[in-house]
């Protein structure tokens, strides 16, 4: 097993509403313990307590770890009852969290590498922490963020603090009109693409990367139960035909490993 996992009660220190569909939660360990070392691209399993309709934990990617305040940021889309409940948590509320889970993005980069981090919708979440980690490694990551409209472009100012940001919106209300794969960012030659977003977007980005022979990593969000590799529910079929757990072998995969 890769890294030690913890189950912690965490206290909500901030809950920011982002548009009608999203929330940004900031959490600190309730007992004051230091957050475990977490890699960009890893995720957490959040318990949804006191909800009549939610039974299982919800997997949420790590948006950012603020070491100065020892806080974990989670960018949550209200996808259903469980996440709606989570985004309604008030400051001071305690939430049980299991972390850190999964493998995370590859960090074997050279400082000269040109890196494009492509996110769609709530899939931009793990790219913020990844951007910071890549900066720490001496790189200058660039972002390409896609959304339906300007209102769905999340945490733009935060991304702009880390690197150059390109945007695409389907209705043209911000950045370039159209899908991310049509964005002029792709006129530049990148050495690696990191991508997280809706499945059709990730497949389209992976196709562009394949055509241009660029290394590409995607973060999958298959429906999970345990998050620990025990239940075998969240499987993805790899290029070799074998099913693997997204929660332990992923959520990040090099697209060469997938039959895309």
């Amino acid at each position, binding site marked *: *097993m890769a890294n*030690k*996992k*913890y*189950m912690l009660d965490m206290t909500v220190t901030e809950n920011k509403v982002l548009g009608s569909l999203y929330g940004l939660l900031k959490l600190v360990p309730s007992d004051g313990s230091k957050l475990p070392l977490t890699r960009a691209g890893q995720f957490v399993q959040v*318990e949804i307590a006191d909800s009549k*309709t*939610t*039974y*299982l*934990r919800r997997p949420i990617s790590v948006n950012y770890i603020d070491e100065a305040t020892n806080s974990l940021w989670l960018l949550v889309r209200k996808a259903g009852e469980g996440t709606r409940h989570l985004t309604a948590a008030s400051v001071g509320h305690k939430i049980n969290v*299991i972390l850190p889970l999964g493998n995370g993005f590859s960090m074997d980069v050279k400082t000269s590498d040109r890196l494009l981090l492509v996110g769609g919708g709530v899939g931009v979440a793990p790219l913020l922490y990844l951007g910071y980690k890549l900066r720490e490694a001496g790189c200058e990551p660039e972002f390409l963020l896609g959304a339906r409209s300007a209102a769905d472009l999340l945490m733009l100012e935060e991304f702009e603090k880390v690197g150059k940001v390109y945007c695409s919106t389907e209705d043209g209300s911000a950045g370039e009109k159209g899908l991310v794969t049509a964005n002029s960012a792709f006129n530049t030659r990148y050495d690696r693409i990191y991508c997280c977003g809706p499945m059709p977007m990730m497949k389209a980005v992976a196709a562009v990367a394949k055509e241009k022979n660029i290394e590409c990593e995607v973060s999958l969000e*298959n*429906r*999970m*139960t*345990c998050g*620990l*590799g*025990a*239940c*075998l*529910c*969240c*499987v*993805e*079929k790899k290029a070799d*035909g*074998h*099913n693997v757990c997204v929660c332990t072998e992923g959520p990040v995969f090099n697209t060469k490993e997938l039959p895309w």
Partner: protein
Amino acid sequence: MVNLSVELGDLKLKNPVLTASGTFGYGEEYADFVDLNRLGGFIVKGTTLEPREGNDYPRMAETPSGMLNAVGLQNKGVDYFIEHIYPRICQYKSEIIVNVSGKCVEDYVTVCEKLSDLDRINAVEINISCPNVKQGGMAYGTTCEGAAEVASAVRKAWGRHMIVKLSPNVTSIADIARAVEDAGADSVSLINTLLGMAVDVERRRPYLSTVTGGLSGAAVKPVAVRMVWQVAKAVSIPVIGLGGIMNGHDALEFIMAGARAIEVGTANFIDPSVTMKIIDEITEFCERQGVEDINELVGII
């Protein structure tokens, strides 16, 4: 000190808390959250003769107080278990029980013969109740003849403790239990998942790739307790109870209804340390109620 140790015939457990197959991997997945040596035992993932890829994704749907799964016995086969997994987990001081599944009777027999070489495996749990495979599995567990056929064949090949895991998807689970008792089972465990189904109305299709799947979690508990009670009245071999146990209180319900030991399943997904809490809660209950030996509570209903 409360005595929590129980005997399932010749199989001695330090406490009645086991983990249900398919919900606890091979134990090591939970090592960060659980002292595996404290468990009565853990029952590892359903093991078959050949490797199995399992069913297509999606395999899980959350339902009120429960979940449906359609994993379909994904595992790397018994040889892989013996060569790669057993050497890693045989150090643990809890009983390691292998859940065995097959698409034909010969498969069950061959898997058990291979497991006979492993010193630390004192028991197998014969799965004749998986609802998620086309061949074998539940097909054997829904008739007295089919259940007895598997149990008696394994009995000839396996000299140690044989648990037979029963399906609730039958008219009379007590009849099936009696049939496997007559065929030589040392104990029975019940219930496996209840066959269920859920529909995504927005997309107008089932949530699971297999349409139907196995329901588990708190939602099934009253059905499971009732069946444990019926079976415990019908057979003289020990009964292991499972189905929706979330805490010590739930475990005690099964014990009072007739279970000598219990298995914790779906609850492990929500709280990976839940088995430790269940052991503590059973102990606290006994202390509070002045029960010196957990066996005093078995089947008091």
